Structure formats: C-alpha cells, structure tokens
C-alpha cells in the first residue's frame, strides 16, 4: 500500500480535496490508531486543517492506498510551536509518501497580475519530483479567474502532470482516480 500525501500552502483546499477524493473513491476508513503516540494529529486538532490519514480499500476489502492530509506549509517560521510541529509532521509524511499531490490555488494564480510561484512552492515541487509520482493539482478551478490561473500554472510547469480540480462540480476527480489506480497498486 502506498501513501499519497496532499501538500500545499494554507487554504489551497487540501482538506476539502482529501474529503472529496475519499468519498469519490469509496470504501474508506479513517484511522488515527496507526499514528505514533506523540503525533499531534492524534489529538484531533482540526484547527490547522490536519486530518488523520484515510485508508482506501478495494472491492475485496484490501487496503490499496493511504490518503494523507497535511498541515499547511508556510513561508515564514511560525511563532507557535504547535504550528511548527504540525509542519514538521507534514514534511515527515511527505518523505514517506510515494505519491505527492501538490495543491496550487488556481483562482489565486489567475487573480494575481503575473503569476510568480513563491519559493516555497518551487522547493516543494523540486522535492516532489524526487518522489515516484508528483502531480500538481490546480484547485478551485470553478472560481472566477481560475481558468487563467490554470493556464498560467501549466505554462510555468509545462512538463509536469497537472490536473485541474473543482470540488463543487467534481471536476478532475476521475483523472486523479485513474492516476492512483496505475500508481498506487504497487
């Protein structure tokens, strides 16, 4: 079973994406039991948008994928120790994952004049590319300006796998599922 980790800056839509994808994939179960004892995730904090990993099973009930939501990575060094700790957990999760979904907010990319990905996203991508499967998920593609945002992201990273996703109209989830079926079952 492989880990697919969902990473990105604050409020790009990580948690909603994990929720929507798990319900789309079906046969899921949330487990906090598998986490190490000192893991802040066990405390059920949802403030920073951290959820417990979700295990996805196939028709025969065998687990084939673990979907892992993470706390947002931030540009700055956060003042709060808890926030830093959550980020540290995110990076540890990222390291263990075979599949990386890197979420970029397409609506925001479309609104800004001239899309310049922040350094954090550049480094995130550079690291992600060292993993077996790295996919850029352009989120909120239903929102105004998002079409332009998706185009800009695609232009900036022409060689990368990119899927535009919109949760209200479930756009993109099918493509994500198809990729997972190919790459997770190893």
């Amino acid at each position, binding site marked *: 079973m492989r880990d697919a980790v969902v990473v990105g800056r604050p409020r790009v839509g990580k948690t909603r994406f994990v929720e929507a994808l798990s319900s789309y994939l079906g046969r899921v179960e949330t487990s906090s039991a598998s986490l190490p004892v000192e893991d802040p995730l066990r405390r059920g904090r949802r403030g920073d948008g951290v959820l417990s990993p979700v295990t996805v099973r196939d028709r025969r009930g065998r687990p084939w994928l673990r979907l892992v939501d993470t706390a947002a990575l931030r540009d700055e*060094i956060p003042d709060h120790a808890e926030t*830093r700790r959550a980020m*540290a957990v995110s*990076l540890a999760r990222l390291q263990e994952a075979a599949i990386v979904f890197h979420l970029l907010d397409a609506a925001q990319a479309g609104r800004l004049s001239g899309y310049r990905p922040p350094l954090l996203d*550049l480094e995130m991508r550079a*690291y992600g590319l060292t993993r077996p499967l790295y996919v850029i998920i352009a989120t909120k593609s239903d929102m105004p300006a998002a079409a332009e945002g998706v185009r800009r992201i695609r232009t900036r990273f022409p060689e990368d796998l990119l899927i535009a996703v919109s949760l209200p109209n479930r756009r993109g989830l099918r493509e994500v599922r198809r990729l997972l079926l190919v790459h997770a079952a190893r």
Partner: protein
Amino acid sequence: MGESTDAGTSQPSHDVIRWLEAGRIPAHQALARMRAADEQARARRTIPLEDRTPAAARIVAELDQLVGLQAVKRQVHEIWALVEVQRLRQRAELASEPHTLHMVFSGAPGTGKTTVARILGRLFRVLEVLPKGQLVEVERADLVGEYIGHTAHRTREAVRRALGGVLFVDEAYALARGSDKDFGREAIDTLVKAMEDHKSEFLLILAGYPQEMTAFLHANPGLVSRLPIHLNFPNYTTLELLQIADTMLAEREYRMTAEGRESLLQKLGHSIQFGAGGAGNGRLVRNLVERATRRQAVRLMRQQRELTRTELMTLESSDWEQDG
C-alpha cells in the same frame, strides 16, 4: 568500520525536520535540505566499497554537500569506485591498468572548479593515488616566460611544486593565445613532457570557460588523449544560488526577511536571464551578499538609537536594492 558509513553525511533529513520544528529554518529551506540529503543518500548507494575507506567517504561527503554540481559528483563517485576496484584487483593479483586521471574542467569562474580540484587532491591522497595531494594553482602568467627556455623552466618549476599533488592550470586556453612564436606553446609542450616523465606522480587539471576549452583542446589533439576525464561545471540555477546565499548568510550569522528573500530571488533570476559572463555563478552571490551587508550597516547607522540583536542580523528587502 562502525563510524564509517555515515561519517561525512552532515544533515540526515530527520535532523532537518527537527530544525524546522525548532524554528531554526523555514519550510522551503527544510525542503531544499531534504532534497540534498536524498541526493546524497542516492549517490552513496551507488558506491559499494565506501565503508572500507572511511577517510575517502568523508572527503566525498564534503563534495556531495556542495550546492548543485550533480554530474561532477556522479563522475567523482565513479572515479573513486574505479580506483578502489583497481586496488582490490591488484590485491587479487588481477590485471590492473595504472589509471590516467588527468582532467579538463570546463566552467565559468566561480562555479566550483578550484574547490573540487582541492577536494580531489585530498581524495587521491587518502586513496594513495597521490602521495601528498596538495593543490598548486597557476595561470598563464605563472608559466609563460619572456625568452626562449624561460617558459620551459618556469613550467617545470610549477610541475616540481605540484609533484605528489595536483597542478591546476586556470584559464588554460590562454596558453594557446597569440602567434606561433608565443611561448604558450612551449608551456603546453613542457606539460605534455612532464606527464610522460612523471607518470602518476602528479595530476594535471586544465580549467577554463567551456567554449574556450573546447576550442583549445581541438587545436591541441595531443592533449585530449592525455586528459581522459572531463568535468563540466554548469552555471548555478536561481534556486542553487539562493541556497548558496543561505549558506553564506548562515555562516556570517545574518538572515533575510521574507521580502528580502523575494528581492534576492528576483535579482538572481534577473542576472541569470540578462547577465553576462558573471551571472549564474557563486561569485555573483558573494558580491550581492557583501553589498547587502554593507547597505544594512549604513541603514542601521542612520537609526540614531540602540539596535537589537535581531536588527543586527536582519537583511531587509531594501538592502538588496541596486542603487547606491
């Protein structure tokens, strides 16, 4: 054996994650370091004999920690493996070629050529390829003399100092400059002869800009066969330059604000895109860093009051600006 395997690897990624948690580094830096640690781990996996030579492993780990230069690192790992295997073959009384390890380094100034040459000298010393491993750095002016015979004498002198170590000829293509009567020719011939006379007593590295070196070697086919190893030192990418800046600033106990980092990133991107020869190399970063610290000093002295430790450490966006 015990301490050998991890002897030189300085930042395993669990340390990096701990630093992030302790608030010592921002997330983007943690990611960059995790990536470097991964690369190191991967490079190590390709070397089967490493734990037999802890000293060599330590030196190669130093090389692996340099920013960028992936191809150079890979080739050095290969050379290292080759030397080790040849030695094991000798011990097993198998045929073993004495290796010719003279090299050409192609790359702009400030891309790490001298640093790598120095590391190679030390590596070859612990591998017992070279008895001393010192680096003697010369350029045309050190070799070429003013009358017939003078050049040969000066070149032999440089070789003599380099015996047991590395003779590093910077901007070597300049030896072929000028007319046929130029004494550069004499220097080249003397070097070729020295390689014959002092086989495996010293290592010759000819270095210089890629295009010039290509033309130079083309015009001197006799050299090419004697310098079988070619290492390319590409200009650094923007992210690599930023990583270099981070290291330099950390060493000097400075740090950047987020806006400052953005300014620097823009500036580096701009120099790479539009800059001439100097762009994309480590020297550019050093100059920018030094100028920024000067500008910070001026800015701070204008504040007629006590300065905090943080203020003394912090480079702001305005410190990276061009004017002044």
